[in-house]
């Protein structure tokens, strides 16, 4: 069989990494030991490159709920909710999510990626306009592409730039869908949601906020950045994921829209995907209850974030944003960042290497994610591994 030319190009990039003997995008955790530790290359390694913000993946209550559902309802649903039927738990989780946010209704998707694909592609179509932040996650770009709508980017976190672009739309601005994120996953910087809500109101448009990295972390009961900034009522659609603070997998949207229940029939990523297995639904419902009550975990997370941020700052590293669950160390050069990442792994610390075009500004960075489950000692060990790097600090 002949080689696929597109994959050959990917192969060439992979080969470049292989010659360096470093593979940051194929790391295998041979055994997961806890929310914050795993065995990698036979070495006990601190995991600072997960999205396990509250450390709930090993929560006994969640595991018990999952086990019970697994025994009672089996391993999988073997089909999509529309074609093959929902289980009661799917709808119960939607009711739970709506109640948690104080919104009218909710819809559950099989992944966070599909939540953005499913929402954007159902809300807009050919001839409509979507306004997206320039630093949006790939799932937002892909959702836009699937929708067929006209996609206008505005400068990152810049509400004035959005307003300028809305003005150019004339009468179409009122029908535009504005999509932003709460916390951006590369640098950990927060969106000025109050400013975006004002632009939305000025033009009578619709606002969607992806709280993937802020749910469970920020706001009262962990409702996210929109809640923290007091604008949850102005956000028409809140999108989120079960795979970060909730420690499971899946995605959702909550909204006051009276049409949300029928959106599921117009959303191809919803219709044509198998629904989440019973154990995941049960575990997510339990994790949501835990998350809502976890002010203690949020405080530990914030303390850990501040400890890591202060520690790395004192070492002279350039950091992406004020202390937050995502602490990004800007390195600049890609090869330097690659060697730095490898150095950390060999010193027992796993972080995420992020390179352009996923990163803003053409810079490579080392992304640390903090968990409430990290001990202060682990945070100090992460700082010590960074301190042992003798290369350039950018």
């Amino acid at each position, binding site marked *: 069989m002949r080689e696929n030319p597109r994959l050959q190009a990917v192969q060439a990039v992979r080969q470049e990494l292989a010659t360096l003997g470093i593979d940051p995008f194929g790391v295998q955790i041979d055994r997961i030991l806890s929310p914050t530790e795993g065995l990698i290359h036979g070495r006990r390694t601190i995991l600072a490159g997960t999205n396990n913000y509250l450390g709930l993946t090993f929560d006994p209550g969640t595991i018990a709920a999952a086990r019970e559902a697994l025994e009672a309802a089996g391993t999988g649903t073997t089909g999509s909710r529309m074609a093959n039927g929902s289980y009661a738990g799917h709808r119960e989780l939607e009711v739970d999510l709506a109640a948690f946010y104080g919104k009218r209704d909710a819809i559950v998707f099989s992944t966070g990626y599909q939540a953005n694909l499913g929402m954007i592609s159902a809300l807009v179509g050919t001839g409509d306009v979507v306004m997206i932040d320039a630093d949006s996650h790939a799932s937002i770009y892909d959702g836009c592409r699937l929708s067929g709508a006209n996609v206008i980017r505005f400068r990152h976190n810049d509400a004035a730039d959005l307003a300028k672009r809305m003005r150019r739309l004339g009468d179409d601005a009122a029908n535009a869908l504005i999509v932003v994120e709460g916390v951006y996953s590369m640098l950990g910087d927060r969106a000025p949601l109050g400013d975006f809500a004002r632009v939305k109101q000025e033009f009578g448009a619709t606002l969607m906020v992806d709280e993937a990295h802020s749910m469970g972390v920020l706001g009262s009961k962990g409702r996210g950045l929109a809640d923290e900034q007091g604008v949850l009522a102005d956000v028409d659609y809140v999108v989120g994921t079960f795979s970060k603070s909730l420690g499971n997998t899946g995605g959702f949207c909550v909204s006051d829209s009276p049409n949300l229940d029928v959106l599921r029939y117009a959303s191809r990523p919803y219709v044509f995907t198998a629904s989440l297995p019973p154990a995941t639904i049960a575990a997510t419902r339990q994790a949501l209850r835990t998350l809502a009550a976890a002010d203690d975990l949020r405080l530990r997370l914030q303390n850990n974030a501040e400890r890591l941020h202060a520690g790395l700052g004192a070492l002279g590293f350039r950091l992406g944003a004020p202390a937050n669950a995502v602490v990004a160390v800007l390195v600049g050069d890609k090869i330097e960042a690659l060697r730095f990442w490898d150095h950390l792994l060999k010193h027992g610390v796993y972080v995420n290497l992020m390179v352009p*075009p996923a990163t803003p500004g053409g810079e490579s960075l080392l992304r640390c994610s903090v968990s409430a489950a990290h001990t202060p000692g682990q945070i100090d060990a992460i700082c010590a591994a960074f301190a042992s790097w003798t290369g350039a600090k950018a």
Partner: protein
Amino acid sequence: MNHQDIVAKLVDILEPLAEGRVADIGENTELTGELALDSLRVMDLVLAVEDEFDISIPINALAEIKTVGDLAAQIETTLSANA
């Protein structure tokens, strides 16, 4: 503004982005091929072009745009639709 005026303005915007890869940018210069702009840089170019000409260019329109001349034609169409 005619096509050549638009191309001239685009060349001004593109010259710093080209970093000397193409000595003589013109109508037929390819954005991703010869100028080697990655997808993100092309989208950032659109931001600058939108502000320069005070128009909206959806990024989905980029699928049809290969050269500086293609981009100029898109701008021309948008300007005449707005007029």
